């Protein structure tokens, strides 16, 4: 897996649909995206956005939750019935439970308003890269310090092999497979221990603690595995 770059190959072709009723926000996102070589489609209402997506198609959707014609959640649900396009939700600050609900409803990531352009672009890049990699064989993450070979089930740090248990490796796999993406705690618990254990957050806490330890991470100043309190975990790829 290639390390992070500002302009990944193929990004110039990516077309992004922005659904937001605020003209000012639409404007600055549009300008920023075009300056980075993305194509844009702009919609002011949910209905308009859905129509645009259906007729012209897009590689990624940025959806604002507060729309004038209908609730953003509804748009998200309807969209997910017929499209798997990567989707970032824009939301004014809401509780973490709400964020989890959005992720569970099919959003791939969220950005809270107000946000920096850099943050938004980083999320867009991560999602587009993942979408491009979906069909590729088991990738290898390597930033020069940490190397994870998912197929060979090998992890090494500074060239030294790291011995992970089956569970630890499974967790690392879940995270590394979707770099930069926030994965909810519920989803991690379900994938790791099955649907009956989605409430047992302490399993995850203990496991993450051990994994971080083995990766030489300090939880209070993490580099790779970021905790979003009350929401979930995110693997942050590092530049070599």
């Amino acid at each position: 897996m290639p390390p992070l770059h500002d302009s990944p190959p193929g990004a110039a072709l990516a077309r992004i649909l922005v659904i937001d009723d605020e003209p000012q926000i639409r404007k600055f996102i549009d300008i920023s995206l075009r300056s980075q070589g993305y194509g844009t489609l702009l919609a002011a209402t949910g209905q308009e956005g859905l129509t645009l997506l259906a007729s012209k198609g897009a590689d990624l959707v940025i959806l604002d939750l507060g729309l004038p014609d209908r609730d953003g959640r509804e748009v998200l649900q309807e969209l997910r019935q017929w499209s798997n396009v990567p989707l970032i939700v824009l939301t004014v600050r809401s509780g973490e439970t709400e964020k989890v609900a959005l992720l569970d409803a099919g959003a791939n990531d969220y950005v809270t308003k107000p946000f920096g352009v850099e943050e938004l672009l980083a999320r867009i890049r991560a999602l587009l890269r993942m979408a491009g990699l979906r069909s590729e064989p088991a990738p290898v993450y390597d930033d020069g310090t940490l190397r994870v070979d998912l197929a060979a089930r090998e992890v090494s740090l500074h060239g030294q092999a790291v011995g992970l248990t089956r569970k630890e490796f499974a967790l690392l796999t879940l995270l590394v497979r979707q770099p930069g993406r926030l994965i909810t705690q519920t989803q991690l618990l379900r994938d790791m221990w099955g649907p009956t254990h989605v409430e047992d957050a302490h399993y995850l806490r203990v496991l993450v603690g051990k994994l971080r330890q083995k990766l030489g991470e300090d939880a209070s100043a993490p580099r790779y595995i970021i905790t979003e309190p009350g929401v979930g975990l995110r693997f942050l790829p590092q530049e070599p």
Partner: protein
Amino acid sequence: MGARQTEQADALLGELKRQSAGRLTVFLGAAPGVGKTYAMLTRARELQRQGMDVLIGIVETHGRAETLAMAEGLPLLPRKRVEYQGRQLEEMDLDGLLARQPAIALVDELAHRNIPGSRHERRWQDVEELLDAGIDVYTTVNVQHLESVNDLVYQITGVRVSETVPDAVFERLRDIRLVDLPARELIERLNQGKVYLPEQAAHALQAFFSPSNLTALRELAMQTVAEYVDTDLREKRTARGLEGSAIQRHVLIAIDGREYSEYLVRAGARIAERRGAPWSVVTVDTGRSAEATRLAEDLPQARASTGVRAEQQRQMEIDKAFALARSLGGDTEVLHNTDVAQALLDAAAVRGARSIVIGRSRDRFMARLLNRTLTQQLLLRGARYELTIVSTPQARKQALGLTDIRGELLTRREPALILVASLGAVGTAALAERFLGLQDLSMVFLVAVMLVAARTRMAAAVITAVLCFLAYNFFFIDPRYTFLISAHRGVATVLCFLAAALIAGRLASRLRMQVVALRAANNHATAMQNLGRKLAQAADLGQVIAAGSAVLQSTLHAEAWMRINTESGPAGNARQLTDKDRVAADWTQQHGQASGRYTDTLSNSTWWFLPVCPDKDSLGVVGLRFPSGMGRLSFEQRRLAESMVDDIGQAALRTRLVSELEVARVTGETERLRSALLSSVSHDLRSPLSSMIGAADSLSRYGQDMGPEDRHSLLETIHVEGERLDRYIQNLLDMTRLGQQGLTLSRDWIGIDELVGSASRRLQRYEPGARIEHDIPPGLPPIHVHPALIEQALFNVLENAAKFSPPQEPIRVQVRRTEDDQLRISVSDRGPGIPEDERRRIFDMFYSVERGDRGRHGTGLGLTIVQGIVGAHMGSVEALPGLDDQGTTICLTLPWGPYPSQEHHAHAPSP
């Protein structure tokens, strides 16, 4: 001193009540036909001439011309037509009168009995309602209708007047006017046909109007008026603080439920009244009533013995006498004790009574011989008290007819028990004689008698004693198998045995009765305790209602419903209330008096409604529906229900006070906060906005003249100030979220290092220059908190530290596990520090704003939010001096919460 002041306060209170509510003027006469109605109308005309608003509610002229002429010209309220058993009858229109609100209403015949189905059973109750509504009432009544002289009238005339008016009505008295006519003149008028008499009663009443009767009644009327004038004067003097009656001379009236109980109550009340003394009526329950209740439940209805029925009869007598006592203004209580004399003396001591009034004891020869009658015992043991013994004509007669419950038929299991005990004794005695050679076999039989007595009542014990006596005599005393006794020694043994058996039996059964009596008293106490406990846990009115009705239902075995203020419950029972019931409930709440079943107001409701806190402008109403088969309430039940309702009322009042206090406190605090918030908003919203607007404006106007660095710097300003504004708004939002009622924590397991990490990362986004040093020991277990909230709290503390710390000086975050197993997070900065006396205040809302218009200090909300969040987690925050006495350390302490079980992790299923 206390008693006098209380008395004075009571008198003042009474006076006040009388001034605000309507007042009663009574035209009292000795007999019908003396001209009461005429006198009342004459007075009314005078008042009308003076411009008073007088209205005739109801006046019976009985077709007398001169009365009719007097009524002419006075405004008259049309009567209400009521249909009763197919006949059209007329009645006073109470609601019309209340709606019309005259200053003075004339209501004739206070003792009148209303047509069944009217709101009140009696007219005096209508009058009370009018008085409550602030209407002055003029009314007429004959002296024989007064409750307290009812018995005297009966003794004088031999006619029992059933329509009596309780003396308590006269508490509202403004004026009592005697309408007097010499006996001779009255008889003359009678002979002239000027006195109206109901036809069917005319004959009986003829005897009533004998000259001697009339003279006696006239004297009684005069006496009554004199007494009221006297009482009135005394109360007025007391209200003014003049010396009233020097000592509380309480009068204790003891009744036992024989037929003369009501007579005794009236007599005692008169004695107390004359002395202006408070009084109370007591009865002593020796456990017999509980026994009778138990027996009545044991036995099928048909077999309920006459003794049990007599006991129930006696209970009803007591109930009636108590009801009478209450209507005359006395207290009532049931005492539990097997020793009647002792119970009375105790009660007298408790109440500070000087006098005890009792009825004449039934003369039992043996008792009198042994100095055991109640009168004798009271005289012997209660030397301090003045003893008044009231004799009644019925007392002796009654004594003969009395059946003692103890001599009553046995319950089903008792004959079996007696037989088994007796036969067992015979068998045991035979065996003992043959194999052990025991000489004195009476002991064996004595044991049998004791066994029976300890388990049953006196009757069974006596029968067993006699049976055993006979068996002993028959089987074991020579000559055997006859009832003859040959030796003197034998006679002595047998007689001694009989005496011992009877005494032991009596002792044992008395002990048992005592236990039963105690149990009854205990039941009451337990029920009240149970209620008290439940109510103590109730935090608001809804819970008081729920807990109260649940306890009422389970204790009284009745359906309960209550409404206090505007809340009512439980909903299931509320649905069963018909409109009729609701009218009764409303009436009770409005008037603070019981209504519905078991009362004489709106008694066609199946519910019994009791007012809650009647003295505190009636807080609410409690309804109880007993099974329809329960024709009457025992005094115990009534008293228990009333005391429970009292307690519920107190609890409701308490919750109301608490919430009122809370509202007052919150209102005050809200006011203070609002002004602080306004100044904060103007300061903290405007300064970043003005920077942003200024920078953007400069850029758009002069951007092309600036160097790229200046342009970038201005852009940076817009960005940084925008972020600052955003954080401020976030703080306000957090504050409202925390301030909202019922903020629920969704706790989850999270590592404290993860939280510190997340907060630090966020801070570094806003303050890229800030250096944070962590000191977190490895291996800490995860904590059980609301992760996002605690992270926000940590962020706020860090942000605060960063604001004051000089650049390049690190902020230290230290996490420790305290000795009492709590989590302590200390965040230290190297800033200027906080003076000791202000350290507490930094957690106050808008604290930094209060210090003045200093830009760098932010909103003064951050630390308040920290305190709110940590407080919600049952933790604490404090500000301490920083490391080496430099700067400040903010210290968060959080309880750890339960540790997650680690073994789950090890055995958790694989994906």
